[in-house]
């Protein structure tokens, strides 16, 4: 349990807990961003530089902003600050406890042991590139297709609205 694990873990836990417990939704988003940054630090500690930087680039740079935009567009930013404890806290607690037990059981039965964290090697990024092009080429292509579909879907969603608006104007006349 050395410092390079402890500090990112604390940041991550504090951010995640704050994301659940803060009253103002935008504060929650910012706390979630902190949790993402903690994740990236954990990846750095494990020697996965590339993955940590991509986590920062994608999650902190894009996903957090996306969540913030969504919160603001759906009126969460100006909504009244609600209480943190909901009336059905007992059901939630039981469900979360069951989930925790299940995950804990799964992790304890896995092959990961505590000794694996002592020596950390960082691999050059070119190895990841080689692997993506050769042994993982199919997942890479599927990712490309998925991203293209998502982009086209986004464009279609954005385009459809003005056409509907103009069509409705014609119907009225």
């Amino acid at each position, binding site marked *: 349990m050395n410092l390079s694990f402890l500090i990112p873990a604390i940041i991550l836990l504090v951010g995640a807990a704050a994301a659940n417990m803060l009253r*103002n939704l*935008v*504060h929650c988003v*910012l706390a979630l*961003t902190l949790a993402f940054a903690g994740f990236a630090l954990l990846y750095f500690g494990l020697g996965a*530089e*590339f993955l940590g*930087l*991509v986590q*920062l*680039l994608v999650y*902190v*740079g*894009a996903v*957090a*902003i996306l969540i*913030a*935009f969504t919160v*603001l567009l759906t009126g969460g*930013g100006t909504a009244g600050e609600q209480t943190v404890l909901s009336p059905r806290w007992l059901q939630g607690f039981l469900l979360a406890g069951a989930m925790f037990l299940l995950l804990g059981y799964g992790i304890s039965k896995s092959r990961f042991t505590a000794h694996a964290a002592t020596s950390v090697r*960082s691999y*050059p*990024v*070119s190895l990841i590139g080689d692997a993506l092009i050769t042994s993982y080429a199919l997942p890479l292509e599927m990712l490309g297709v998925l991203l293209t579909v998502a982009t086209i879907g986004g464009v279609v969603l954005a385009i459809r609205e003005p056409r509907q608006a103009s069509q409705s104007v014609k119907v009225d006349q």
Partner: protein
Amino acid sequence: MSSIQLADQIFVLLKHWLVGRVPVSLQPVVGILITVIPIICVFPALFAITTILERKGLGRIQNRYGPNRTGPFGILQPLADGVKALTKEDIVPANADKVVHFFAPVVLVMLVFLAYAVLPMGRNMAAVDLDCGVLFFFAIGSGTEVAVFMAGWSSRNKYALLGAMRAIAQMISYEIPLILSAVAAIMIAGTLNLQQIVTQQAGYSGIFPHWYVFTPWGFAAFLLFIISATAESNRSPFDLPEGESEIIAGYYIEYSGFKFALFFLGEYLGMFSISAIAITLFLGGWAAPFSFLTWVPSWLWFFAKLVTMILCFIWVRGTLPRLRQDQLMNFAWKFMLPMALVVLTSAACWRYTEGWQRWAISFLVVIIPYSWLGHGMMSNRKLEQRKYRFAE
């Protein structure tokens, strides 16, 4: 070691000597401090020089003198500005979110300074020699958007929020051409390590350097990169989010005094770091432009190129009018993104061909889509006599 090499490596040798004088247990910490403290001192000093350079430069462009009362030729103006920023009252709106309002400039400046860690300012003079330095830089750069959002939202001001949304939309849109044009250089260099990218460009054929900007795809990629860099650092002509005549400073409306100075510092430092990356990726980093000039120290070349790029930024600011939000988004998605993909194709053609054919093919692959897209963009403008419709 010859005197040329001594001059070139003088800071590295100084650092090693100082670290050697300290007891072994303290050496890592002292080493880090000695690397970091000059960066924290030099770049804000460059920022101060840039503010006076910009004001005088803009003044000369606009047929007037810049500030010339404080000190001879106005050299002490940054000092006056600094005193003003420090002694101004720090006003926080009563409705504002105090914690977020406080942390927004802190986060911004912290992230911007962090990006300086991977810049190779001379031979062997990068603070941290990361294997994926370029990715680090862009990851940190995308973190600044969170700081902008924090600043805009915490002020509880409609105009601040609007300015922040516009700024974020602009930054996100221009990140894609930025990264894609950098990818072209990375593709040819074959590595994400910034020092290695520079050493790849440090060769000479005859007296001419191997800089990527002197190749067809490199020139196009360089132009795309600096246009996107201007947009990323919210600088004219892309400064709608912070235009003084538009939205009165956008997301930092509610900041005064030192916090405003921090935003200003963050913006300029961001401009410097992105120019430094452009220099590293395309302009050969710390390499000399001609083979007979290699006796000049490498860090001197780096800073000379940086100052030249800053002057070009100032020149462009004084020349071009501001772009409207829809115009700049149009430009990013409909012109820069296709051009970035075309440049990638051109770089790929360059990689797999030889001799004079590679120049011809690469050039054609860039220039034909450029004229076609450019023609398409220019014909969309309906520049005709304005017709007015009056209410009946």
